[in-house]
């Protein structure tokens, strides 16, 4: 079976520094895969490389079996991306932002579908017509998550998706992610939230200083990965 996302011996340099070193992993369809690590671990760099915003110094990244290098357009068409601290446009309302970005992606979506997606991220109905410059960070994040979920793409790359969300909204997000995965969509999310990652992901790769230092799978029949084991590994490598 062809992996939806794969990194093979991936190394990336930014500003002369090697920020990813010989990283390899693959993600199958319907899987939620989390890259966990501290600040500067190389998590966001990994996502940007899948999107073709950064080029590998060595190794390669593949989307649906095709090397991104040389198939950039197809790769971006297959991916919905939620950047870290996505603000979208402050002068537009939630509806206008969603409509605009979806029209750019060639996804025609009616008001009902927009409302459905915004309901799922629990954005209050009376805020949806307000300009997003009046939103809190969490409200903006909810709209960005709704946007990613509305894109008709098989793959979602989510950079710190729960940043700024309150606990209730995080639970909503986890449910949404699970639903999307069950519907066959593949999710690669990056986070430094050990607890959140353990609850939502099928697999966690622990990234430290650009190197994969550990991997944790959700045991068969369990609803989450062992938080304590991941936390211990995280602390150990952060201390090292």
């Amino acid at each position, binding site marked *: 079976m062809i992996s939806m996302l794969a990194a093979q011996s991936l190394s990336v340099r930014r500003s002369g520094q090697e920020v990813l070193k010989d990283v390899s992993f693959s993600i199958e369809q319907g899987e939620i895969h989390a890259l966990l690590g501290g600040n500067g671990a190389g998590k966001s760099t990994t996502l940007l490389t899948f*999107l073709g915003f950064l080029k590998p110094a060595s190794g390669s990244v593949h989307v649906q079996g095709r090397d991104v290098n040389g198939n950039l357009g197809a790769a971006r068409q297959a991916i*919905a*991306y939620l950047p870290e601290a*996505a603000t979208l*446009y402050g002068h537009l309302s939630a509806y206008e932002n969603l409509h605009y970005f979806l029209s*750019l992606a060639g996804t025609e979506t009616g008001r009902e579908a927009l409302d459905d997606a915004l309901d799922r991220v629990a954005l209050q109905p009376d805020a949806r017509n307000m300009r997003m410059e009046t939103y809190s960070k969490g409200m903006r994040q909810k709209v*960005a998550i709704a946007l990613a979920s509305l894109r008709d793409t098989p793959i979602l790359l989510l950079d710190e998706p729960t940043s700024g969300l309150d606990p209730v909204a995080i639970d909503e997000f986890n449910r949404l992610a699970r639903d999307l995965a069950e519907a066959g969509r593949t999710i690669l999310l990056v986070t430094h939230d050990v607890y959140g990652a353990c609850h939502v992901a099928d697999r966690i790769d622990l990234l430290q200083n650009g190197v994969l230092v550990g991997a944790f799978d959700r045991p068969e029949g369990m609803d989450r990965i062992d938080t304590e084991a991941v936390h211990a590994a995280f602390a150990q490598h952060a201390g090292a």
Partner: protein
Amino acid sequence: MSRVLSIAREESRLWLRSRLALVTLVIFAVLLAAVSIATSLRMSEEYHHRSEQQALAEETFLSQPDRHPHRMVHYGHYVFRTPPPLAMIDPGVDAVTGQSIFLEGHKQNSAVFADARAGAELGGFQGLTAALVYQLFVPLLLIAIGHGVFIREREENTLAPLLAQGVTGNELYAGKWIALAGVTLALLLPLAIVSAAAVVRGEALLASFGVISLYALYLFVWCGLILLVSALVRSRALSLGILALFWLASALIVPRIAVESASSAMPAPGKIETDLRMQADLREVGDGHFPGAPQFQQLRANLLIQYDVERVEDLPVNFRGVVSEVAEADLTEVMNRYAEERMALEARQARFAENFGWLSPVAAVSAGSRALSGTDLAAHHRFLREAEEVRIDYVQGLNRVHVEQLDYTDDINRSLNEEANRRTRMSAENWNVLNEFSFQPAAAGERLTQAGAPLGMLSAWLLLLTAGGIRAARRMQP
């Protein structure tokens, strides 16, 4: 294409919803409208005023009583340079060169200002023209609203989502370009209205269209520059600083250097020095008021032989008139030589300065604007040449009356004999030798040719900046 238009629409919506951008746009729209109307009214008034002055001058000349024709040569006449219709946009050299010339025998007077009325009425603000606002201030507005057009996407973290939707650098660039060009076209509306008014006043459609196209091209150059800088740098402050610096250099420093360089590279001899040299040459020609001067002895001898007579009194023509006619022709040849030398030098200096359009779009557009409006140095030189034609025609026409209709004996005795003096007064009907003068701009095709170099420079600027902008936009990363 729909993506490009969506991006353009969104950019425009941002400006419309941004109070600062909207207020700035409204202020500039009002400024443009006010200055366009003021310049139009001023130049329209100038046109009518100078046309009236011209008619009055002709009427005054023709209404002179019977008198000696040489007194009419010295009585003189005025010609006025009426501003062409497109001077409503760009009065060009009108404010710095004279607009009227006193024509008289034996002299080529400099153009002088018709009056200082307009300047006094406007409290000195007559210098603020529609052309100046478009050349200097509209780029500032475009900089103000456009300097962060790409940077904002980076700073607000919307570039990554945009590119992740599959939007390419080309599409992003095209969308932003259309948005900025849309503002530009809206700002060109007052110019288009004044150009249309110029057509109603008799201007060629080609010239009016040329002016609008020139300014559109010029402002698109600024759009290209703004987009390029915004795509290349990562902070709004830096982008604003670079663009403001370029504006300063392009609008104020380079044009000044251009003028100074032209003067240094092709220095013009001083007026006093030139006048002294010319006076020396004119003295060699001789003064036509003194037929006995050595310069005219050969002419006298030739005439006596030609008509086979012994004395000038026996000539069938008035010898004094012939001397006046010949002296005027010779003086004119000398004066024209000096005038042509001076105009050729000025034209070379203007061309030299125009080449600075390769360094400054402002220098290019100002040269092109004056050429297309018919208010450039070449138009002023044409006015001087046409005025000189009027002068030599009427002076020689009067000299011909002197030669053919006035008896030589009466002529030389007119101070001694009242009856002879009466007979030397020629009929006022002879003053019809004066041709009506109406200064018209050069044909639109000719003006377009003169504006060819500035148009070429601006096209090159636009191509380079657009190519650079597209390249920078393609390489943009979140």
